[in-house]
């Protein structure tokens, strides 16, 4: 029954094909006469390219073409869309020209008959380098005397500075009873979806149009970027995101392989495929997170935080990728989270370093912000002898204070105005769910036994469902089945199911009668994509608006068929029926057939077909919120951190499918846990990454995951016609804060002050303990 479908945990429409091996990821696409590309990448972190010799590689068996930077020198660089006007346009080229700036930068590509031959020949491309000094340390890179300038023409490694200014922080600090300072260090890690990136560029469509199959989160933007770089109209380009095996932000970027494969395919007149290897992935796909936050907090005698200032640095790597400013922008705009803190100043620098480009990953800048804010709250509470929950409550915006203009802004997304939510209520709920008081008591007992147990709590507010808009196109065909075309480009979120629920509820039909298509720019004329927790809420709203228009049109057609006035017609169970006249009704299929082009135009209508398009223009950002509680235990002898228990109460407005939202929260928590406890991309002094795949970059397994108890609140947003906010990223954002807080709490009695996000590996924790012992002894 369709009524009340929204809000129920229906099982997903996507699953059958995914479970039976019938899904089609980009690596599954086989085209006639397809060739294969291998990318020759820089082995140096910063060097001049003195010479590239390709003769031996060209002579290798099966080789069709080799391209180097010279061959594509006329192509523009890859766009960065979140640069502001005074930013330094440190943009990534399609292939390196004259210089390389990180290990992994594409220098040449080899196209051959099969991937084995392409890799054979790639080894034969000879590149002669002259090394230049590398810039790895963030503070050094941003300093006035950096070891090197990555782009000497700019005279600085600072690409841009995001500034926020609210109230009068100087006055607040001058009048503060207490001032706290801390510098938080956040390490570099990566989204690491299970499917690496990949492309199949096909130049064989009629009229020489290009089809680019690519593992992306935003095919319509890829179409626009590709057209821009190649200088060809978008109408000549079709971009298809087939099934995509996870993205988490890393596929919300436009990459050089998406251009060079097309160049090669057009040159050869044959399809070209490239599938990123996992080793390659860790240098060729954007990294995430690495920041340093120098934070100060002014606190009055009652524990009210009156002001915060922030100076932050983001290690953006060697170029500004598509969404490169966003981590700095979000972390500076959102640092204060749910806390009032009326005076605020931030200066957040996006800094170029000799590393793989860094951009957004689930949560973008939120996890970093939550980590800093919540560790700072805990420290203030501890130092002032105030209960940390109480301190949070004293500073937390109440429901009555919303909406609240926070005075900050996020690049691309806009002004930060908290729309709805009950932050203190959410905290109360999670404490209840976690059994907080009981846990505190047990922690004290555990400590008395010499165990190292910590509790962490993280409250946050998060930008979701950003604009600018999304499209929905709903069509009913003569069978009565419904096809929805959405501009979202889901890759695991279950958005097709969620949209089907919304549309089915609107039309009161079984949701299995709805087919949702996405990801093909020739099928879906316009769209924005799936990122920033926007798919379900924004695309869902657009689809439902379109379905509503379809229903209104259906009623008009039915009024002709039933010979009744539209006002006398009600919509019941997917049929139009005359109110009070049992048995007088027509089905959706009958109505759709009446509207087809081989009939006359239905009375009173100006167009054929039961077919409507809607745009949901987003009037402003909607802000989700949540509170997380984590309990950890640290093995005193080995430094192993284990997350024992986890509770979360999440509020992302109206929920379409609680099963899916809970799944998003679970997955997000696992990613936060991984980043805190085991994932890291470190570099050696020469700028070579110390990660070569999943054998030395460790994602969490099932064994590390705690039980997770999840509660929901639903504070609808006025910014969405159906009250929905986004739920994709909050799990990660909260987990980073809660687990870091728990580790920090665990180590307090041992004299360790945690000012960063680890990763809290066994050796790292043992080193913290040893340093604290040394400090205490000194």
């Amino acid at each position: 029954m369709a009524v009340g479908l929204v809000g129920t945990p229906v099982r997903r429409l996507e699953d059958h094909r995914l479970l039976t091996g019938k899904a089609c990821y980009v690596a599954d696409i086989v085209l006639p006469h397809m060739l294969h590309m291998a990318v020759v990448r820089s082995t140096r972190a910063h060097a001049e390219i003195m010479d590239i010799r390709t003769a031996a590689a060209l002579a290798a068996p099966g080789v069709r073409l080799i391209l180097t930077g010279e061959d594509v020198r006329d192509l523009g660089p890859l766009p960065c869309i979140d640069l502001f006007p005074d930013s330094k346009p440190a943009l990534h080229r399609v292939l390196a020209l004259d210089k390389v700036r990180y290990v992994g930068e594409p220098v040449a590509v080899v196209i051959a008959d099969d991937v084995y031959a392409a890799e054979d020949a790639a080894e034969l491309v000879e590149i002669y380098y002259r090394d230049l000094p590398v810039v790895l340390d963030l503070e050094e890179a941003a300093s006035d005397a950096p070891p090197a300038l990555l782009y000497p023409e700019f005279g600085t490694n600072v690409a841009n500075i995001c500034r926020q200014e609210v109230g009068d922080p100087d006055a607040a600090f001058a009048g503060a009873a207490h001032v706290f300072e801390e510098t938080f260090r956040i390490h570099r890690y990566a989204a690491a979806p299970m499917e690496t990136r990949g492309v199949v560029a096909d130049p064989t469509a009629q009229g020489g149009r290009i089809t680019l199959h690519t593992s992306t989160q935003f095919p319509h933007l890829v179409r626009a970027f590709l057209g821009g770089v190649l200088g060809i109209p978008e109408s000549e380009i079709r971009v298809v995101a087939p099934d995509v095996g996870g993205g988490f932000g890393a596929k919300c970027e436009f990459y050089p392989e998406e251009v060079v494969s097309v160049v090669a395919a057009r040159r050869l007149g044959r399809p070209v495929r490239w599938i990123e290897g996992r080793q390659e992935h860790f240098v060729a796909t954007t990294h995430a997170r690495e920041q340093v936050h120098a934070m100060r907090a002014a606190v009055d005698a009652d524990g009210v935080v009156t002001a915060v200032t922030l100076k932050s640095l983001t290690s953006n790597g060697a170029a500004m990728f598509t969404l490169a400013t966003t981590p700095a922008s979000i972390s500076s705009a959102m640092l204060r989270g749910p806390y009032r803190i009326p005076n605020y100043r931030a200066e957040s620098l996006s800094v170029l370093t000799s590393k793989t480009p860094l951009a957004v990953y689930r949560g973008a800048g939120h996890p970093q912000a939550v980590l800093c804010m919540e560790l700072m709250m805990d420290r203030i509470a501890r130092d002032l002898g105030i209960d940390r929950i109480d301190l949070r409550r004293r500073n937390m915006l109440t429901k009555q204070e919303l909406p609240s203009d926070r005075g900050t802004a996020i690049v691309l997304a806009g002004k930060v105005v908290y729309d709805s939510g009950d932050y203190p209520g959410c905290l109360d709920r999670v404490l209840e769910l976690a059994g907080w008081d009981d846990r505190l008591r047990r922690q004290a007992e555990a400590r008395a036994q010499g165990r190292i147990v910590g509790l962490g709590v993280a409250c946050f507010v998060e930008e979701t469902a950003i604009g600018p808009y999304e499209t929905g196109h709903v069509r009913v065909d003569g069978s009565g089945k419904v096809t929805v075309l959405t501009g979202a480009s889901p890759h695991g979120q279950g958005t097709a199911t969620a949209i089907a629920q919304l549309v089915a509820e609107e039309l009161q039909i079984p949701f299995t009668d709805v087919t949702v298509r996405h990801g093909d720019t020739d099928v879906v004329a316009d769209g924005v994509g799936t990122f920033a927790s926007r798919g379900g809420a924004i695309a869902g709203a657009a689809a439902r608006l379109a379905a509503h228009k379809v229903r209104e049109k259906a009623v008009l057609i039915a009024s002709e068929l039933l010979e009744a006035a539209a006002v006398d017609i009600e919509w019941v169970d997917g049929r139009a029926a005359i109110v009070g006249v049992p048995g007088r009704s027509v089905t959706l299929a009958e109505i759709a057939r009446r509207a087809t082009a081989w009939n006359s135009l239905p009375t009173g209508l100006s167009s054929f077909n039961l077919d409507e398009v809607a745009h949901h223009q987003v009037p402003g950002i909607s802000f989700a919120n949540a509170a997380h509680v984590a309990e950890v235990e640290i093995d005193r002898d080995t430094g192993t951190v284990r997350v024992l228990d986890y509770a979360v109460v999440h509020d992302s407005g109206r929920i379409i499918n609680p099963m899916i939202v809970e799944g998003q929260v679970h997955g997000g928590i696992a990613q936060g846990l991984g980043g805190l406890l085991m994932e890291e991309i470190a570099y050696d002094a020469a700028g070579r990454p110390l990660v070569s795949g999943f054998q030395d970059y460790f994602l969490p397994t099932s064994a590390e995951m705690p039980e997770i108890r999840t509660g929901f609140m639903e504070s609808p947003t006025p910014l969405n016609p159906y009250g929905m906010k986004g739920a994709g990223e909050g799990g990660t954002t909260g987990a980073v804060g809660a687990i870091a807080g728990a580790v920090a709490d665990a180590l307090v009695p041992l004299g360790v002050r945690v000012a960063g996000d680890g990763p809290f590996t066994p050796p790292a924790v043992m080193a913290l303990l040893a340093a604290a012992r040394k400090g205490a002894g000194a």
Partner: protein
Amino acid sequence: MKPAPFDYESPATLDEALALLDRPGACPLAGGQSLIPSLSTRRMRPDLLVDLRRIPNLRGIDADAHSLRIGPLVTFAEAAASSELRSACPLVVEAIRHVGSPAIRNRGTLAGNLVWADPASELPLVAVALRAVLTLRHRDGVREVEAADFFLGAFETAIRPGEIVISIRIPKGATGARAGFAEVSLRRNAPALAAVAVQIEAADGRVRAARIAAGSLQPTPMRLASVEAALEAAEPGTDLPALGALAAGQTIAGLAGQSTAGYAGTVLPALVGRAIASTLAAL
């Protein structure tokens, strides 16, 4: 991520295999669970792979009065399921639980693992602890090498070009021998940051024989002779796990390229204590 070209033979006899392996650039292939990933990244680029799978008599586990002989194609899964190994060399079975994951254990061989000599791998330290002897065959002859002499460095062994491991001989423990294995890693199924293997034979409240070795501390497995001796000398009623403290202050040659050797040294006494305790719990 595709192997460089190589030639491939799968000879039907050991003699043929040894003749092929005598060619320059030849490399034996058993389970391939370490070799094939290295082929795919092209870290390894043999000219010729000699697949041992068709050769008869390389698969079994045989016992005589004093030892067990493990054939070079015996997989981890087969070894873990062997009741003879479980009773006579329980440490081998105990350690295998920490090796790779089920699919890796279905293909990977004990002999291949030893020859690979990964300092973070579990089997080498078990071989050293149990005084295993490896029989190496070359077309020109046979020799035996004690495990302690077999491991020369990280990923470096005494095996010579053209040689293969033809058997792993492990002295049997007394009936009732028990084993414990303690390991720290970043997460489940990650390489050991530190590992300790213990096998104890006890009677009448005394330790008759103790076998202890540690891994990930240095490029090769380290036998902890002082702890072994202390366990064997301990009077009944001694707090045996506390003897793990004797492992403190072991001289540790840093593991090249790994920053965790110092860590391994720090946690060693506790891990030894835990491995002893879990062994005693099994007794």
